[in-house]
Structure formats: structure tokens, C-alpha cells
């Protein structure tokens, strides 16, 4: 089977201590029907601990984290990732 095109993940500043300062990660080799959580699990395999900082133990996206798939906000970890999707992780504006 032809591998799916890589998913491009934009890493916010608040998570770059995990990626060694890298702001963009390309996830190649995900399943052809990959979900958002497949991408987060792969990120966590590469950068241990990253997923738990943005997704809690009940598989809920943490309150001040936003996930955009090709520009659309989603909190559903089961959402499908289109081929060559861009996943943007964002620390939401909050506080004063």
C-alpha cells in the first residue's frame, strides 16, 4: 500500500522544550485512515511526555489547548486526518 503523505504538525513555543526547539514536525508513515490521536501518539513516541501535557488521562484535550486540523478547530481525538493534513497545536489566549 502506498504510504499516506506526511502530516505536518506545527509545534507552539510552549511545547518546544519537548522537540528540542523544532517548530515543525513531519509525521510520515501514519496509517492511511489516521486519526488525530494517531498523530498525537506518534508525536509522544518521538517526544515522550508531550501528549499528556495537552491531553488528559480521559483522552480529553486540556481546557486551554486548541487543535486545528487544516484550519478547523476540533477537540475530537477520533477525527480523521486528511492526507497531508496540517495539524496546528495552539496554547489558547487566556488570562490577563
Amino acid at each position, binding site marked *: 500500500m502506498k504510504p499516506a503523505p506526511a502530516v505536518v504538525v506545527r509545534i507552539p513555543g*510552549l*511545547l518546544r*522544550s519537548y522537540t528540542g526547539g523544532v517548530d515543525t514536525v513531519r509525521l510520515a508513515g501514519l496509517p492511511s485512515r489516521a486519526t488525530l490521536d494517531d498523530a498525537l501518539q506518534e508525536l509522544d513516541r518521538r517526544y*515522550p*511526555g508531550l501528549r*499528556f*501535557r*495537552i*491531553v*488528559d*488521562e*480521559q*483522552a*480529553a484535550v*486540556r481546557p*486551554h*489547548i486548541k487543535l486545528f486540523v487544516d484550519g478547523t478547530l476540533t477537540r475530537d481525538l477520533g477525527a480523521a486526518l486528511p492526507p497531508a493534513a496540517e495539524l496546528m497545536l495552539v*496554547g*489558547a489566549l*487566556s*488570562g490577563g
Partner: protein
Amino acid sequence: MATRSSANVKTGNRASPPGRPKGEPRSARHPDKAVSLLVATRKGLWTLQSDSTRRSWKLAGPHFLGHIVHHAVRDPRDGRTLLVAARTGHLGPTIFRSSNQGRSWQEAARPPAFEPGSGRSVDHTFWLTPGHAAEPGVWYAGTSPQGLFRSADGGATWDGVAGFNGHPQRMAWCGGDQDGTPDGAKLHSVLVDPRDPRHLYLAMSSGGVFESTDGGADWRPLNRGVRALFLPDPDPEFGHDPHCLRLHPQAPDRLYQQNHCGIYRLDRPAERWVDIGAAMPKSVGAIGFPLVLHPTDPDTLWVFPMDGTDVWPRVPPRGRPAVYRSVNGGRSWQRHATGLPASQAWWTVKRQAMTADRAKVAGVYFGTTSGEVWGSRDEGRTWKCLARHLPHIYALEAG
């Protein structure tokens, strides 16, 4: 995340009398050794290191700048391992560990977290306790909402203590996770009997004090005699709000607690707490967060009263901060405010933010919600500001 800055601090000494204060033991001039304080704040972790006289202090940090650090503790079993409970405004809770006194840090591979499917999520780890001396590597953590966790590998991986988190009475004891204190319901003051690693105590705000004699497999409430004026039954079995619970390491049957409704002492095997807050001046009251024990004298303790009237402003009564000390197990109290601001000081001291060192003449220290660290090298009689301009201080531990 290494220390990013270090500076000698010109400690404030306003109102600090020259020479030896009246009543100060001569031996206070010759303390045992230098003291290191871990200062956990809403914006990161700092350290304060004294010289051997505890007169001069050096501030270093921050570590984890921008992280909300609820507790930082040095392992007394090896003197060099540090554990830090941290989260940020956006990112979830984790534990950082250092085995070289903070020169380098590693994140826990599996931080405290409830079981998937339980419907509960850890908002933050609030409390850290090193385990028994005979169990190196064992640590306990208390979380918000209330959960108890244990690590057997020095804080690298954590598991829930099923005997507590899954106890059939837990919901009755704690209420729902929405029933907590304003900053979230907390499990804190995890205490290990130095004679027996299976004998544990913990406290919950709210929920009360609980005891286990089988290593955490089962728990029972231990609250008789403690008031709960916010409940319909003023003397219930559980549901209380202990703010800080302490066990004296050299007299492990002696327990004290600073509660939402007073100050109490319990001498086991007794089951009923004795109200020792009744001896506090009525104009000050017996409300506060921290309670600190003398390192060698089980009859000596310190509290930091706050205004618990009306809407609970959580400031010193009349804006005049003072430490109160008892040297007779709470039968009477003395006010100590020399060196502290005489008026118009509206900060307070949170439950983990007051500590004592282990010098022969004990040093006592507290951190304020306005980012100051104050210290006394004469068992609380006189005070000096050791650091200013830090963030809101959540915890202070002497190592």
C-alpha cells in the same frame, strides 16, 4: 531547564535589632550548618542558600520559569534528589526530578494520573512526600482533585493508590470534584510514620484527616473533636477542612493540624482531637493555613494566623502579620512580630509555605503570597526579609 540567574540578595533588615535580640539564645550565633530553601512559586522555582550563620542568603533561579510549581521537595534520604510538582496555565500536570541538586532535570515518564475510564483527571499535583527511610525511591503525591499516588522509582513513574482512589467511601468523604476549595479540592499532608512504612495519614480540603495502617490498602476517618462549622452536623465523622497536618518525627504519636475551624493536637492512640486554638487571643483567632513543628521538641510549634471573619479575606488580622508560637503543645501561645511589618501588610502564607530548618536553634521561614521570603534564626522571635519581588509563593521547604 537549568538555573538561569543567580544573585546575591541584600536582605532587608528593617526593624531588625542590632546585636543579639533580647532573649535570643547565645547558641543562635552558632547554628549547625548552612540552610537551603526551595521556593516554589506561581511562576517557577527558586532556591535560597544561606551561609553557615544563616545571616547571609543567596537567591538562585528560576528553574521552570512560567511553570506553576505547587511543591518542591528535597529527599532527606539522600540529600540531593529533588522532586517538583509543576504545570503551566496551558499544559497539564507533571513531575520533574533531579538527582544532582537541580543541575539537570528529567520529566517523569508517567506522572500522577487517574485511571482511564474513571472520569477523573488530575488538574495539578499539590503535595509531595518522600517515603519511609526503609523504602528508598518511594514517594507519595496528593493531587487536585483529591487523589493519592505512589512512586516506587524515585518519581519516574506513578500509580494511583487504589485503596484510596477506589475506596467505596471516597465520594462520601470528598464530595464531588466540584465541591472543593476555591483553587480546587486538594489531597495534602501525606505523612509516613517513621516507625512503620505501612502507617500513613493524609488530609483533604475538604474531606478531613484519614489514617491507614496497611500501606494504603484501607483508610478510615480520624476527625473526632474537630469542628466543621460549615456542615449541618458540627461534629461529623468526616467532611472537615484540615489545612495542614503535621506529625512530629521524633514523637510520631503526636499530631497537630491547622484546620479551617481552629488548631488541634492529637496524641495517639487517642482518637479525639484537642482544641488548642482556643488558647489563641480572641482578637486574632485560630484560623490560618500553615503549621510548623520544631525539629526536636514535639511541644514547640508555629502558626501564621489569618483573618477568617466574614468573607475570609485571607490576610493577617488588621493587616498586622505575626507568627504565633507555642512551647507547651498549644496550651498557650506567644505573638512574635519583631521585624515584620507593623501595619498595612496584606499578604498571607499558604499551607506549604512555612518551614523550619534542623539547626540546634531552629530557623523558621515563610513565603508570602506577595513574593517575599522571611526568616528567623532564633526560633521565630525576630524576623528578617530574605528575598523580595518573587512571584506568589506556594511552598517553601528547608533542606
